């Protein structure tokens, strides 16, 4: 698989961890891509989350039969929604934020309308300072286990599957919603 951002000046993409064609390497669902941007990590995080409607390119993923993706928005903090609002005022929830570390790390669930009720994927975005710039990396995974160091940080057993993690978060968030009175 080639670099998705090839040909763009100043851009660099790291190969996706996809080796479906190679016998011997485990089947994976992980995509990894990174790019250096001209801002510090705090500002980059802020723009990624709070100005997403201004930079997001329509992908046609979130509404079948309509043009564009609507206006994307993040609700800040763990449990916040990533959702999109269409011209007619209707909304679609793409997923919930599970890690919100401004200037460092952002993890959120990613469900396309075509996914079944149980199916979810997860996106992790990391922000690392490189001089005065920031290396933004996106890891999108459908089932690969979360990295061991993160697993340890959150107290998950390291072999737990992504689906279980997603279930865990769903449960945790439902519990939280109940406690704070149906937000």
């Amino acid at each position: 698989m080639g670099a998705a951002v090839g040909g763009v000046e100043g851009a660099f993409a790291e190969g996706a961890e996809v080796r479906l064609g190679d016998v011997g390497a485990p089947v994976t669902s992980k995509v990894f891509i990174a790019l250096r941007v001209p801002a510090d990590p705090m500002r980059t995080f802020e723009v990624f989350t709070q100005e997403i409607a201004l930079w997001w390119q329509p992908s046609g993923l979130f509404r079948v039969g309509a043009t564009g993706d609507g206006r994307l928005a993040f609700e800040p903090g763990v449990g916040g929604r990533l959702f999109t609002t269409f011209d007619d005022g209707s909304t679609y929830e793409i997923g919930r934020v599970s890690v919100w570390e401004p200037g460092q790390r952002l993890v959120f669930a990613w469900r396309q309308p075509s996914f079944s009720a149980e199916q979810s994927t997860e996106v992790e975005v990391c922000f690392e300072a490189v001089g005065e710039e920031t290396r933004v990396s996106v890891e999108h995974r459908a089932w690969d286990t979360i990295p061991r160091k993160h697993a340890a940080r959150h107290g998950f057993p390291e072999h737990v599957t992504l689906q279980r993690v997603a279930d865990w978060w769903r449960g945790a968030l439902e519990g939280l919603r109940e406690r704070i009175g149906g937000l």
Partner: protein
Amino acid sequence: MSAYDLDRTLAALADPYRRRVVDLLRERPHRAGELAEATQIAFPLMSRHLKTLRESGVVEEDRDPFDSRVRIYRLRPEPMADLKAWLEETEALWGRQLVALKAHLQKGRK
């Protein structure tokens, strides 16, 4: 590729043992017994995993031409191709979005 098919493939592979089976079948077709042995899981449990993989269309079964009591499992190429296509689309999507994010940040500096 239909979204339904991809979804079934993802669901079928959302289990480490079933992924291990898929990894083994990518080398060559295997008998159910060989799969159980290689993954070190009990035969009845392996049968359940194989049933899930079969129902999702990821694998197909044949009878051994030399011994009709023995079933041989092989990978069907289509679900793997669908999965690869999804991964490629997802990679292209984030590539585009990161480039757009970068362009937006560059605009903001001027």
